[in-house]
């Protein structure tokens, strides 16, 4: 038997005793280890930010999809805005023209003058 083979068997023998020592661990110690494990899992939950507690698909792709859907619905639901009426456009034109403001103020006078001229 080679030295390497002897070492392997020797280590295997030691490993068996170590495994038996592991199996013979008493119930109280196992319970304390279980309790420690639960505390560790609880601590791991608490250390994560709130958004990390959601599934990753929801946090990344899910949120992006939700945003697209909300935008699409909002565009779809919004009623078409009515275009400006013709009359309103004319009023706008009058209001924005500073030069002829006097003319429009005395429009009734000029209409009367026109009827008088036509009659005469």
């Amino acid at each position, binding site marked *: 038997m080679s030295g390497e083979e002897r*070492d392997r068997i020797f280590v295997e023998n030691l490993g068996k005793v170590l495994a038996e020592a592991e199996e013979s661990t008493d119930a109280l110690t196992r319970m304390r280890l279980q309790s*420690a*494990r639960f505390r560790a899992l609880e601590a791991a939950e608490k250390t994560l930010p709130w958004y990390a507690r959601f599934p990753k698909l929801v946090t990344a792709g899910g949120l992006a999809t939700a945003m697209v859907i909300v935008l699409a619905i909002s565009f779809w639901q919004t009623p078409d805005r009515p275009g400006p009426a013709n009359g309103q456009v004319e009023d706008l034109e009058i209001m924005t023209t500073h030069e002829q403001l006097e003319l429009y103020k005395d429009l009734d006078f000029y209409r009367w003058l026109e009827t008088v001229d036509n009659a005469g």
Partner: protein
Amino acid sequence: MELATSEALNRFLAGVEVRAYRMAEFSIGDADEALDLVQDAMLGFASRYADKPESEWNAIFYRILQNRITDWYRRTAVRNKFRAWFGNSDDDGDGKEDPIQTIADTKSPDPAKSLYHADAVVAMKTAIGSLPLRQRQAFMLRAWEGMDVAQTACAMGCSEGSVKTHYSRAVHTLRGLLEEFKP
């Protein structure tokens, strides 16, 4: 944390906790301190490394545990120095036996086998305890946890060459100390 990850983490820790505890106990020779170290390692692992791939968990967990054990040795060495300066080398001092230790163990059906097993464990614990820390770590991770050289190197935070050297020396020393386990 995802539910699936949490369940996987629970399964992983449940699978390693007893062995990790026994390793720590073999390393430092104190059951309560070993339990604290394992708890600390589990907390550190679950808080910071749960998002790593599951295939890496074993090496990472044992690396944390080995670091905790090394830290424990450092702290103990410093504490012992202070005790030596102040002339107080024994915490208990009263020399009284723990009453729990005197209660008969009724769990084992075969006392002769139990005695042999207990003797073997004590002998091995003493032998492993006499090894230098790094040799002890290399031996336990390879012989007990069944890690290969690369995984052991990762868990110990050293090169594969160092692992081979530590392990070889550990086996050589143990062969001299534990004659009854020789083939």
